[in-house]
């Protein structure tokens, strides 16, 4: 043991099984992603509504922005603690070889990430503590919120450098090419949109909860308005996701075919199908809310009713597995008679063209139409805030929970699609777990060091 420690203890993982190490990091990071995503989306909504509140002198919008920032500050304490715990304890202890290598390769993006983290603390807590005082100079407050938005954008970009590199590392030896890898931009766009949709969905969830608990008409009216804001944001941005997600998948297909195969036709296709189910649930619940909310105020909208029906149809089309096994022969053909841990129960995601694609295109167009019609009704003054019913509150809560689930599921799929690699074609999970550092500074180690320098662009 002392001999091992004296060699390179910092590179030898703590002795737990791969399954435990994966589960611990996975659980922690999937939880952390929820907080981080909310920070980015929430900051955008807060800045937008504070700006609108300033320009239009609308107290309700200002109140919304304040509530959002206050929640962000509280959420930040938990989210950042999770991140620090993951980095300081779990990564260093359980994935040390991998973590050191990644840190060496992506050193500068992670330094920028740390800097952006510090700026986030300064901006967010300045806004939290000095909200009223900054309110005396509203443009200054909105400006600070804009700084926060840009800072969080940079933060997400830095993390996306890491995540995309792990999936599609470029066979190159200089940092710019490593950073600008094939899945960086699709992932960045996908996450940016997703984070705003997620923040909107959480707003809708909280609004739905408040609607159910509201005691006064004023409370009900605010919760109703907030629910509409959340639903419009969530559905609008989720409507863009099928297209961007499709393009992301295409890049994965082109540059990490094994991962793509696993997601679409292999073991992860079950999870991907469940993702399709959740997407349908989100959009259908949101469109149902629009339709019924307008109806509650006494206005019929046949277009919204049609949108709800079409969304339901697209949901069914999208979430149906390609292999529906009714007979034993079909069960056998679908490999559903073998336990999942032995490679069974593979339900291929299905024929992307034309069925799933049709469902995705339908989701997009139906959602855009529904948002447009709903906003037209709002602009015509057809909605009286505070009239939302229980079923509409439940629809909002359902949407919020489904968006939260889909965020976690997408993280799970992305992180597992690389298997058995930690970094596609460069580092196996087993390699890192069974890593044994070289025993002496002999030719082998010298060669490895030279190789590392080549990768890192060092001397």
């Amino acid at each position, binding site marked *: 043991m002392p001999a091992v420690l004296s060699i390179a203890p910092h590179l030898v993982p703590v002795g737990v099984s791969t399954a435990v190490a994966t589960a611990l990091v996975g659980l922690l990071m999937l939880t952390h992603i929820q907080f981080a995503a909310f920070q980015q989306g929430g900051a955008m909504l807060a800045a937008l509504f504070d700006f609108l509140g300033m320009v239009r002198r609308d107290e309700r919008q200002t109140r919304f922005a304040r509530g959002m920032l206050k929640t962000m500050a509280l959420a930040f304490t938990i989210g950042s603690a999770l991140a620090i715990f993951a980095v300081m304890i779990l990564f260093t202890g359980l994935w040390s070889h991998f973590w050191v290598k990644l840190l060496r390769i992506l050193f500068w993006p992670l330094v920028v990430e740390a800097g952006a983290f510090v700026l986030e603390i300064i901006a967010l807590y300045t806004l939290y503590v000095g909200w009223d005082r900054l309110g005396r100079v509203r443009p200054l407050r909105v400006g600070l919120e804009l700084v926060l938005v840009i800072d969080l954008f940079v933060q997400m970009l830095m993390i996306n450098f890491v995540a995309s590199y792990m999936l599609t590392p470029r066979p190159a030896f200089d940092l710019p090419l490593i950073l600008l890898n094939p899945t960086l931009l*699709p992932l*960045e*766009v996908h996450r940016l949109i997703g984070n705003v949709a997620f923040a909107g969905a959480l707003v809708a969830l909280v609004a739905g909860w408040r609607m159910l608990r509201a005691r006064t008409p004023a409370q009900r009216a605010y919760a109703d308005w907030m629910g509409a804001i959340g639903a419009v944001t969530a559905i609008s941005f989720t409507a*863009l996701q099928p297209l961007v997600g499709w*393009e992301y998948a295409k890049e994965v297909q082109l*540059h990490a075919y094994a991962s793509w195969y696993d997601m679409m036709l292999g073991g992860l296709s079950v999870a991907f199908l469940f993702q399709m189910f959740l997407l349908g649930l989100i959009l259908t619940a949101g469109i149902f809310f629009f339709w019924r909310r307008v109806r509650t105020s006494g206005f019929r909208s046949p277009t919204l009713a049609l949108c709800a029906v079409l969304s339901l149809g697209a949901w069914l089309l999208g979430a149906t597995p390609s292999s529906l096994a009714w007979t034993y022969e079909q069960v056998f053909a679908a490999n559903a008679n073998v336990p999942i841990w032995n490679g069974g129960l593979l339900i291929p995601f299905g024929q992307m063209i034309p069925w799933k694609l049709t469902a995705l295109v339908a989701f997009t167009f139906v959602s*855009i139409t529904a948002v447009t*019609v709903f*906003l*037209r009704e709002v602009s015509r003054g057809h909605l009286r805030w505070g009239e939302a019913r229980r079923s509409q509150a439940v629809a909002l809560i359902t949407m919020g929970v489904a968006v939260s689930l889909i965020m976690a599921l997408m993280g799970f799929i992305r992180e597992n699609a690389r298997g058995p690699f930690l970094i596609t074609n460069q580092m196996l999970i087993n390699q890192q777990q069974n890593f044994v550092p070289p025993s002496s500074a002999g030719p082998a180690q010298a060669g490895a060091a030279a190789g590392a320098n080549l990768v890192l662009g060092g001397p």
Partner: protein
Amino acid sequence: MSVEPRRSKLVARLTHPVARPLASVYRWVDERMGISDLVYKALYEAVPRRGAWTYTLGSVTLIIIALQIVTGMFLLWSYVPSTTEAWLSLNYLAHHNEFGAIVRGMHLWGAYVLLLVIGLHMVRTFVSGSYKKPRELNWITGVILFLLVLALGITGAMLPWDQAAFWTTVVTTHVLSYVPLLGHWLQEVWRGGNQVGPVTLTRTFAIHIWLLPALLVPLIGLHIYLLRRHGEHGSWVNYRNDPEESERERADRVLRAEPPYPAVPSDPAYSVPDDLDEFFPSQVGKDAIVSFVAVLIIFVMAVVVGSPLEAPANAASLTYVPTPEWFFLPLDQLLVQFPQAWMIPVGVFIIPGLASTLLIMVPFLDRSPDREPWKRPQLMVPALFTLLFLIFEALLGVNRLFNL
């Protein structure tokens, strides 16, 4: 505030030259041609006061188009439109003629900035609802002008006859073959045969310097005529629409309005801006400042970045990966999403064709009297989605630009 047209000292100097020897000549010409009246009519009109900086985009567009014509003329002195000489003539400019290299850079960057400025101009017009009655034709001519500028951009990219230009020509003329029924015929007409070759370059050159400008210039004239006829609409901030103003008071205000407001009967609430300013010198001054900045940016980019010239065209190359011009990235990315042969026409024609038609039809799709964007969600929301779609497509298309 109503504007009382008056001749400032500056204009007096413009229309009546100080120099005595020229004054008599000027008067002689002026009596026969009416230059003073023309200048007076060109410079004096009422424009909305609020939001004036955003109304400079049209003028900037005009200035950059003029710059494109001038730099294009200079390039014609050196450029030889033949497959054997085109690349050599531009290579000569790049390495042996510093002035020529800058002019070519300005022509290229002028095109890029022009597309951005036209895009902003269209967004401004769209958001402010300036396409509504009686300005529908202003919008339609504007959209056609935008499409013509795009066509000028793509044909211009084919002329250097380097690898990028050659393969752009191959791809663009190939795309034409997907036009239903007429596709192959159109492709052969443009290519001058089955393959891209010398005739293709000659025809592309003719399209770029004759055909498209011949359509562009009269259409600009029509666009400006329509603008002067109906006046600058501005945006909703220029129309207070005081609820306490009676119908009679409003009718009186419209009747007493400064020409060109209102040229033809339209919605009384948006016939005459509340607060007017003079086109000259107030608006012209702002136009000049923004135009100067735009031209300066073009010049700096031309000097600092310049214009690329890749290796000479090589039809036998097996390794070259063609990349589109940045303004075609969304369309290129759209094609990536429709990989199967039967789907290509969807990405190439159906979606872009539908989008162009809808863009032209905007004034007829939105006939509501409202000008505020938040009161027009039926158009603003789909437009916002389309804009986001284009931006994301372009971002995702960057992968193609860097051959990722």
